[in-house]
């Protein structure tokens, strides 16, 4: 039980770190990573909860939940990264345009 508790507490600690990162960081990539840290924390708590039968047998339901949760987190992260890339490409386009205007003005 104590080991389970340790896992759960570590998970909660990760969650806190992630939430702090999400609200304190402005950079998109760091925010996406922060959400994934929150996810890791939650999944750790879930897996720790699988070790709950007195016989020592592992409860499969939390494992199924964590697997699904990981799939969801991966998909959401992929979408978030796609948006971040799109925003970055737009920003690059804009700076390129500004740079070209500067060159034109200088020339």
């Amino acid at each position, binding site marked *: 039980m104590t080991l389970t508790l340790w896992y759960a507490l570590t998970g909660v600690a990760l*969650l806190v770190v992630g*939430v702090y990162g*999400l609200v304190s960081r402005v950079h*998109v990539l760091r*925010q*996406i990573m922060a*959400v994934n840290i*929150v*996810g890791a*924390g*939650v999944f750790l*708590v*879930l897996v720790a*909860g699988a070790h*709950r039968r007195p016989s020592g047998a592992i409860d*499969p*339901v*939390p494992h*199924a*939940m964590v697997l*699904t*949760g990981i799939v*969801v*987190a991966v*998909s*959401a992260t992929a*979408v*978030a990264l796609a*948006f*971040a890339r*799109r*925003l970055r490409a*737009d920003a690059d386009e804009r700076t390129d345009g500004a740079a070209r205007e500067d060159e034109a003005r200088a020339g």
Partner: protein
Amino acid sequence: MARRERTRPVPADAPWIVWTVVLPLLAAPVAFVLGRRGLAPFAAASSLGVAASVAALAWQVAAQGVQRHRLGGWGAPLGIELHADGLSVLMLVMTAVTGVVVSLHAHGTFGLGGHETREPSGRARFWPLWLFLWGGLNAVFLSADLFNLFVSLELVTLSAVALVALAATRVAVAAALQYLLAAMLGSLLYLLGVALVYATEGTLSLDELARGAPHASVAPPALALLTIGLALKTALFPLHFWLPPAHANAPTPVSALLSGLVVKASFYVLWRLWFQAFPGVAPFEASMLLAVLGTGAIVWGSVQALQATRLKSLVAYSTVAQLGYLFLVFPLVGGPGGLAAWQACAVFAVSHAFAKAAFFMAAGNIRLAAGHDRIADLDGIGARLPRSFFAVGLASVALMGLPPSGTFVAKWMMMRAALESGQAWLMVVMLLGGLFSAGYCFRVLARAFTPPTDTPLQPVPGSLDAAALALAVIALATGLFVAPALDLLAIGAPDVAGLGQDGPR
């Protein structure tokens, strides 16, 4: 497991509950691979097909009572159980009616090619995402356990976020990203709550949770986590920051779907958890806190709507405000008149969905015609776009809560419950909120009476006006159908009357 199989046999003639979820989920990938030519008829056929299966399920529930189905014969805890009672069916009908009308609007909008979306492929991408969203919403309303609710909510979130990004402007993509991050955090907090519930209760099924006595030390913090996660997804003040940019910058049909339906999905889950799965777990103070935040939402959302410079921002902030009403009901359910408050909340959710979706479509039509939606520059728009503007007027009447709209009946029921349970301050908040919404609606309506300018207007296709008008009329008429809605809600309704802090569980 075997015992439950016998006591709750799956009726052989009941495939509709499955089709309601499976049909849109099957149609979505087909719409994705379908060529441009076949897309419109296919989209129309699948929209009507989903609506028809919802109608059949509604008939089944009305005739035979609560419907249950375990997919593939696998029961809880690993299988997926679907469950349809009156509340589920009402939400499904809300989604289907709004969905069909908005589909008509979307057909017109995305058929224009380039007015609403910078990308020509906007139309081809809209249909698969919207069908996924529809399937996800239906799955939320029919899921019978905490984890399937999580998965369904994620399906809703991911498709909703992608739909926002269809606008393809930089602002819209940034808003979609912010929405996605907020929603991800919300669902992870929800999942942590699920983990706590499963670790202590050993079950995820809403029915079993309702039957068992909740673990006194863990259930309140678990419910708190579930509530915070869902409040973030429902955009409850002060967690609403992501909603106005996302809803205001999405393509118009998407704004209508998001403001009308998507926020209701996470609220519906919260509603089920508080009053069905964990009745009496939350202390009265917690429900009071939700009501206070709801009051904050009404005041803050209205003040922002009163100051908004753009029409679609105004409508988006109005959503923040109107969502506040849904949270005012929490301290009322469980008191005297609690059942009426519980019913009123459902009626309010439905009529707000119609009114808000109609308002967004009409606002989008005005933006399409004028080429912008700056309220200050819309002088004389009432005379120049009479049909769209009439839809704005009708939707405004429903939002303000004037008869015969469903909002009027819902607010009236809520106010009566507030008086009966001796919480008159809630009634004051509701009246104040009505005045506020009149204030921001009249900001728009006043534009009908200013002298028209002669800036050129783009023509608005008839189907766009028809969609906005049709839904606005439906929103206004919901008040006339409250009695059958209440009959429907009674099917499988939880016994909320005895939930009070003083009453027995």
